[in-house]
């Protein structure tokens, strides 16, 4: 559905996007992550045909964005960062204009305007001037114009900036609802948002791809071993010795006492894999007559993975230089 091959974009001497390749199947939602200035917006602008790449290729819905710009753009609904809108227009008037600009006939444009206003919840603001809208509502109008004409691909640059928490949940569930029918690329700094809405992630930094894949894979793959956090009641040395003997446990560290339970202690266990090890730890503790109060797997958060990936790349880049 979307295919990016060896995409490069130079602005004078600076390389904004550097041989970036990734692909996305229909119905998937891709989280496009990276620190500020990583080249996310540049990549999106190439995909929407705002400017052509310096080299490489980008296909949207099978159409090359340079060779067949109209066909490629017909397949895309785009919501740029900061949502530039004609502030002197009224919401409904603006959306009808977008319908016309997208080539819909008047009847269809009117119908689509009604549909998208309903979808993003701005029907009540239909006759308000865009300049009088709050940031959140402007953002909705931006999303509405992207949805207009029902394009199979949506490209959303920072779609939830400017929303309050309640609205964020609403918009996220709206985007999640596209899964399976529309192909979506959304860029974001907000990692939990990506975790909550996306099936795939692409992480770039300094224009280069550092990681690509399903979110779960990315998390597990980067973690190396797994770890467990347990809260146990009993003598600390005896417990440490006991835990070290459990097969699959590679390291034991006591990380402090519980503030609520007398004589209870937190341990962090480095293990080789989840599941079996956790069961064995539980069994060993209970068999030895100690109290097992808590047992939970610790998985690396997306933030950790993100930091690890983007800083690693940065460091290796500096070494090379």
């Amino acid at each position, binding site marked *: 559905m979307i295919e990016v091959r060896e995409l490069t974009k130079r602005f004078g001497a600076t390389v904004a996007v550097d041989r970036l390749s990734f692909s996305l199947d229909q119905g998937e939602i891709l989280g496009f992550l990276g620190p500020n200035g990583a080249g996310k917006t540049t990549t999106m*602008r190439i995909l929407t*045909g705002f400017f052509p790449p310096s080299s490489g290729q980008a296909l949207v819905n099978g159409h090359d964005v340079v060779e067949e710009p*109209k066909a490629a753009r*017909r397949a895309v609904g785009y919501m740029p960062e900061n949502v*530039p809108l004609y502030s*002197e227009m009224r919401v409904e008037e603006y959306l009808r204009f977008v319908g*016309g600009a997208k080539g819909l006939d008047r009847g269809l444009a009117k119908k689509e305007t009604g549909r998208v206003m309903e979808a993003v919840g701005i029907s009540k603001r239909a006759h308000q001037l865009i300049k009088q809208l709050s940031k959140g509502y402007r953002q909705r109008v931006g999303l509405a114009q992207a949805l207009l004409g029902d394009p199979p691909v949506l490209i959303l640059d920072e779609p939830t900036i400017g929303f309050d928490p309640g609205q964020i949940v609403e918009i996220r569930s709206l985007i999640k609802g596209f899964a399976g029918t529309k192909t979506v690329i959304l860029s974001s700094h907000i990692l939990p948002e990506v975790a909550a809405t996306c099936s795939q992630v692409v992480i770039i930094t300094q224009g280069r791809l550092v990681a690509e894949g399903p979110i779960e894979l990315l998390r597990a793959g980067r973690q190396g071993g797994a770890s467990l956090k347990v809260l146990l009641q009993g003598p600390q040395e005896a417990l440490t010795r006991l835990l070290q003997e459990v097969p699959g446990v590679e390291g034991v560290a006591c990380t402090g006492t519980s503030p609520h339970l007398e004589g209870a202690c937190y341990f962090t266990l480095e293990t080789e894999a989840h599941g079996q090890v956790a069961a064995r730890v539980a069994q060993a503790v209970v068999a030895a007559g100690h109290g097992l109060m808590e047992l939970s797997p610790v998985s690396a958060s997306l933030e950790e993975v993100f930091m690890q990936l983007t800083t690693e790349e940065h460091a290796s880049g500096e070494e090379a230089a």
Partner: protein
Amino acid sequence: MRAFLAIYRREMAAYFHSPVAYVVLVAFLLLTGYFFYAGVSFYTLASLQVMQNPMMMELNLQDHLLAGLISNVSVILLFAAPLLTMRLLAEERKSGTLELLLSYPLSDLSVVMGKFFAAWSVLTIMVAATWVQIFLLAFMTPLPWVPLAVSYGGLLLMAGAFVAFGLWTSSLTENQIVAAFAGFLPLIILWAVGWAAPLVKPALGELLKGLSLGTHFQGFPKGLVDTADLVYFVLFIGLFLFLSIRTLEAKRWKA
């Protein structure tokens, strides 16, 4: 075609939803109204003198009143047009709406044509408004309708040339003031460059006259249509529309 119409309608709405069109229209009508008043007063005075002194030459309404008024209108249009065209592309570039507009499946041609025809329509409305004066005159005296129609046709062609040029300067920059001034100055020079013709070598003089907007306009207020003048204006409009499209395209590659 649908995209063209959508853009045309949006631009027209933008002119008439903001004070721009009204301010320019009012200023234009005040100026042309003043010139009309002054011209008619002077012509009336001159007519009285002619009646008293049979030795003076015969007065002709088209040559001695209307042609002058039409020429004044064309000069005022020269100043009004860049004020109307400066925002067309510069504003969209500055506010970022151009990025969104160009992500729609429309051609650069329909963007440029939609904006061109919108600004041209506003100038046409302004020019048409001066017919109030013509009708006032028609109450007092029979008018030479055919030369008058030719004059107004010339005015509209001229307005089209101003708009095409202003649209092009607006495509070059994201600063509206720069777009306006880059519109005024070359237009004024192109308008007047023919005046230098008698002062230079004949060959260069012919070239200057050939380039001059003013020289090619001269015939219209007298009710004369010269194919060369028609071709000049059509080519002028075509050239700057073409350059606008190419600039839009080039800015994508350079961006």
